[in-house]
C-alpha cells in the first residue's frame, strides 16, 4: 500500500503477502514442479556427461506437473499465498 493510500484510508490494513524470500522458490514449484530452473546450458552439459537431457521428473513429465498443480489447487495453497494462475505471479 502506497503512502498516499495510507493517508486516504488510515484504518485499512495492509495485505501481507508471502515473505520475499519464499516467493521465487514457490513460484518455480508452481510453474516447473521443482525449485531451480533447468537451463539450456545445463541440459547440454548433462548430455555431454552422458545423462539424459532432462531427467524423467516433472522437468520433462507434463502429467506429473499437472498432478502437482491439481494437489496445490485442491488444498487451496495457491489462493492462500495469493497466487494468480493467469498472470503467473503473486498478487501481493
Amino acid at each position, binding site marked *: 500500500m502506497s503512502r498516499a493510500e495510507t493517508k486516504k484510508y488510515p484504518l485499512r490494513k495492509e495485505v501481507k503477502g508471502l515473505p520475499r524470500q519464499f516467493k521465487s522458490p514457490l513460484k518455480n514449484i508452481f510453474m516447473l514442479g521443482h525449485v531451480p530452473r533447468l537451463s539450456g546450458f545445463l541440459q547440454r552439459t548433462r548430455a555431454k556427461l552422458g545423462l539424459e537431457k532432462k531427467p524423467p521428473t516433472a522437468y520433462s513429465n507434463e502429467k506429473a506437473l499437472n*498432478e502437482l498443480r491439481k494437489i496445490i489447487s485442491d488444498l487451496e495453497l495457491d489462493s492462500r499465498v495469493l497466487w494468480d494462475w493467469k498472470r503467473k505471479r503473486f498478487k501481493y
Partner: protein
Amino acid sequence: MLKYSLFLGCYIPSMQPFAEIAFRKIAPQLDLELKDIEGATCCPVPEIVRLIDHDTWLVVAARNLALAEELGNDILVMCNGCWETLHEARSELLHDEKLREQINSFLKFSGKSFKGTVKVKHYSQVLAEDVGVERIRENVKVDLSNINVAVHPGCKLYKCEEGNAVKYMVEIVEALGVNIVDYGIMRVCCGYPLMLASVDKAIHERTKWKLDAMKKAGAEMIVVACPACYDQFEKAELALKDEGLEYNLPVIHLSELIALAFGFSPKEIGLDLHGVPFNHIFKELEDVL
C-alpha cells in the same frame, strides 16, 4: 544385486549433474541397481513448503512415496533435504492412520495411495549399511592419500539413524584412503537455511567461519553429502572472493570422491564444471591416474 529407486530431487539434476553421473558410474561396481522414479516432483523443500503449508507438504511427499511404492524398491536419496522430507512424512503418515486416510483422499484422483511399504535411505546410509565399507575399500584403485579433505556432513544427517549416518560418512571417506583433517566445527551448519533470513549473516558468520577453520587445519577440499551445502559453500567462496578473500577450497560431493578413488578420470565425471576450480589438485590427480 541391491535394487533401489533413485530419488534425485531438484538441485542435483538441474545444477550439479556431476554428482548424478558419478553415482551412476560407481553403482554397477558396488552391485547397486538404480531405477529412476518417473514423474517425481520436488520433494517438496522442507525449509519452505512445510513452513507455509504442512498439508501440501505431506500430500506431495506422499505422492512421491507412492510413486516409489509402485516400483517396489527402497528409495535412495542423494539430498539431505529430500531425505528429511520423505523420511519425516513417511513416519508421520505411518503413525497416524486417520491422517493417512485424509492425505490419501487427496491423491485419489491420480489413482495413487500411500501405504508405507518402502523405506527411505540416504545414500551414505546405503553405502555403509547395505553395500558395506569393506566393499568400497576393495574397489579403491587410485591412491589419494596425499589429499587432505574436510568432511561436512550437513545438519540433517545428524537426525538420520540417530546420528550414525555422520559416522558412516566419515567411515566411507576414510575407506577411500584420503587424509581427513579435524577442523573442530564439523557439526556447524553451512549457513544455507540462514540465507532465507540474512545473506550477510549467513556468509560471514557461518560459511566464512567454517572456511577459515578448514583452511587453518590444512584442508584442500571439502567433502559434502548435500547439494544445498555444496551450493552454499561455492556461492560463499565466490562472494568472499569479491571481498578479497581467496580460499581456493573446491567442494566435492561424496559420490564424486568415491568415483575418483574408483579410477574414473576427473574429466569423465565433470570435475571441470565446478565453480571453484580443482586445478591445483588436478595436477596431482593426473599424475596419479
